[in-house]
């Protein structure tokens, strides 16, 4: 949606997109003009053909060299896994059909090398752009990337266009490709604004890891903005303002300063405990997926890992990870976090995560299908290897085991038997592990929530995974845009279930945590304290905000608000009430 502002020059324009990384950025735009490669329109002569083909081939060779370089840079910066996209680019540049067609255009139509290559790739790009499936449409950016690489080499244009970036800027692009971002100097980037993409697009991921604001899905910003234009980004509201008026700039500068103060204040919280004003301690931990995220966990002041997702170990190659390979990862993390706990969730594959190393046949309802512990209990050797790896890591710090997708006591007993068997196997080989390694169950299936007391009797802790639990309780697929509005963390049914689970666990003397997205929702924090959660685990970047709320409220206050909320009958009433309450209490925060 576009609204024309009232500014005197009438040029100010506000664009709505998707807020992909929070914060406010004010600065000049630097447009990455991916499409703006200009090709040489001139026809070549008959005699010129061999030289032009030679030009094309050597440019492709040089582009392939660049790719190898970028691949290793990327591997160092973002990990080998994410660098794999460059392998696909490499294959495109070796494609005989593609190269053959470009050569043919040079030969038959006497096009220059750059326009021939451009035309051929553009044709494929257009074709793919029209397909319905997202997996295929997403490859358009990859094609654009290789097109640019080769054309630049043919024209002898230097590729490090980002060295042109003097001073800091907001990066504006239609869409960002991995090779765009890999060479960016992160200290010069104020934010990202792109036409395409959602919260999981490449630009969004990079923005969140650089901790700069990003607004994606803006549709028209690329067309409207030139390098050097002034721009305001509000990554929390998902708004970009082009040619901001003086008063708009003033308004956002004020907000920016305020946010800066808040984040400085949040920094000072790093070493302080997550304790309410009246002295109730909450364990505030972080959810992570990669071992190298532990630095970020510590930097943001979390005390422990409340959820370490182990899936990527199974997703990264087509062979199953060995026990030793897993052990090394688990040990490193456990050692780094020592003395704080690290909770390892056993592999949660299936659903929307299909690995290449395990054959999960297509199902009509993957989220109700063969996934997580259901796979583990069938593939006992795979499960035992993972458990042994976690147990071995427990000798190096405080490791805990979390079992996902348990739906009944039968499964739990079977899993616990296997854990005992893994211990026996280690004992027989006299390999050390900590006998006191805690075992917990992830409460994410409604049946498990309802029999939480029976589960709690048999384990050391419970951790509520709200993403799946809410989806199952409300029968709402969040990915389905038509009904996504029905997905409500603060639905009375969800809150009652949470209350009952916590009560059941406490009656059996075990602690309860929450590791789903609800734990990261500042609107819910007060209620979670009131419901007496012992632990909350959120992504590292969210930790300071949640800690601040915890430290500013009283447990008594939270408990009485929660009692009141429990009498409301709709999610909307609860949201509305909490919004008003929190806004009054935290005037500087955005809810």
């Amino acid at each position, binding site marked *: 949606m576009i609204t024309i502002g009232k500014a005197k020059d009438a040029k100010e324009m506000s664009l709505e997109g998707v807020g992909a990384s929070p914060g406010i950025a004010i600065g000049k735009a630097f447009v990455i003009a991916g499409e703006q490669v200009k090709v040489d329109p001139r026809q070549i002569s008959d005699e010129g053909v061999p030289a032009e083909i030679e030009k094309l081939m050597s440019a492709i060779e040089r582009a392939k060299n660049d790719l190898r370089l970028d691949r290793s840079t990327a591997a160092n910066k973002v990990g080998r896994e994410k660098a794999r996209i460059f392998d696909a680019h490499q*294959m495109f540049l070796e494609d005989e059909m593609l190269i053959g067609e470009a050569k043919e255009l040079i030969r038959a139509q006497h096009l220059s090398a750059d326009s021939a290559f451009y035309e051929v790739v553009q044709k494929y790009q257009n074709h793919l752009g029209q397909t319905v499936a997202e*997996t*295929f449409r997403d490859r358009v950016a990859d094609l654009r990337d290789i097109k640019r690489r080769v054309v630049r080499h043919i024209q002898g244009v230097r590729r490090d266009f980002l060295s042109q970036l003097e001073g800091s800027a907001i990066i504006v692009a239609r869409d960002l490709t991995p090779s765009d971002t890999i060479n960016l100097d992160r200290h010069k980037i104020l934010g990202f604004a792109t036409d395409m993409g959602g919260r999981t697009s490449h630009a969004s991921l990079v923005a969140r890891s650089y901790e700069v604001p990003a607004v994606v899905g803006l549709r028209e910003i690329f067309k409207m903005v030139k390098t050097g234009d002034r721009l305001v980004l509000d990554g929390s509201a998902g708004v970009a303002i082009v040619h901001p008026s003086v008063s708009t700039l003033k308004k956002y500068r004020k907000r920016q300063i305020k946010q800066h103060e808040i984040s400085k204040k949040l920094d000072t919280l790093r070493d302080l405990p997550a304790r309410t004003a009246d002295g109730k301690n909450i364990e505030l931990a972080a959810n992570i997926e990669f071992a190298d995220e532990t630095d970020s966990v510590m930097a943001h002041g979390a005390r422990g890992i409340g959820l370490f997702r182990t899936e990527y170990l199974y997703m990264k190659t087509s062979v199953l990870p060995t026990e030793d390979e897993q052990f090394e990862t688990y040990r490193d993390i456990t050692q780094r976090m020592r003395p704080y706990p690290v909770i390892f969730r056993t592999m949660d594959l299936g659903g929307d995560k299909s690995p*290449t190393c395990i*054959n999960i046949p297509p199902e009509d309802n993957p989220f109700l299908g063969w996934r997580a512990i259901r796979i583990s209990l069938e593939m006992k050797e795979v499960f035992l290897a993972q458990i042994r790896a976690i147990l071995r890591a427990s000798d190096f710090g405080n490791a805990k085991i979390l079992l996902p997708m348990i739906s009944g006591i039968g499964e739990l007993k079977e899993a616990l038997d296997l854990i005992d068997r893994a211990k026996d196997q280690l004992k027989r080989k006299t390999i050390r592990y900590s006998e006191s390694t805690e075992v917990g169950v992830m409460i994410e299936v409604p049946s498990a929530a309802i029999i939480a007391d029976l589960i709690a009797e048999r384990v050391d802790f419970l951790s509520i995974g709200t993403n799946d639990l809410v989806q199952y309780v409300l029968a709402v697929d969040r990915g389905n845009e038509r009904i996504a509005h029905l997905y409500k963390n603060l639905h009375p049914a969800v809150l009652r279930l949470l209350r009952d689970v916590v009560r059941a666990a406490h009656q059996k003397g075990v602690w309860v945590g929450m590791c789903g997205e609800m734990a990261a929702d500042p609107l819910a924090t007060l209620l979670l304290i009131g419901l007496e959660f012992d632990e909350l685990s959120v992504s590292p970047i969210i930790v300071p905000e949640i800690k601040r709320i915890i430290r500013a409220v009283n447990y008594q206050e939270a408990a009485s608000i929660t009692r009141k909320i429990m009498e409301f009958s709709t999610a909307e009433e609860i949201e509305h009430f909490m919004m008003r309450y929190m806004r009054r209490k935290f005037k500087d925060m955005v809810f």
Partner: protein
Amino acid sequence: MIETKIRIQNKLGLHARPAARFVKTASRFRSDVCIARDDQVVNGKSIMGVMMLAAEFGSELIISTTGDDEKQAMKALVDLFERKFDED
């Protein structure tokens, strides 16, 4: 020339990774390999071609192999589809 009709069984369709595997396998044989979807026919030894089919889950393809090792080539390729490219 021999032809086989197959239906895509992996959830994400013939996207980049399986397309790459198909091309690599096809390239091991001397025979020409083509894939047809509806009226679109592409060279099975070109990643670009195979990607352009944008063959999603459930779509029907006709693979044809032509040459002295056409039988072996067909067997290897059909096998890939039957194993769902070891994907899901």
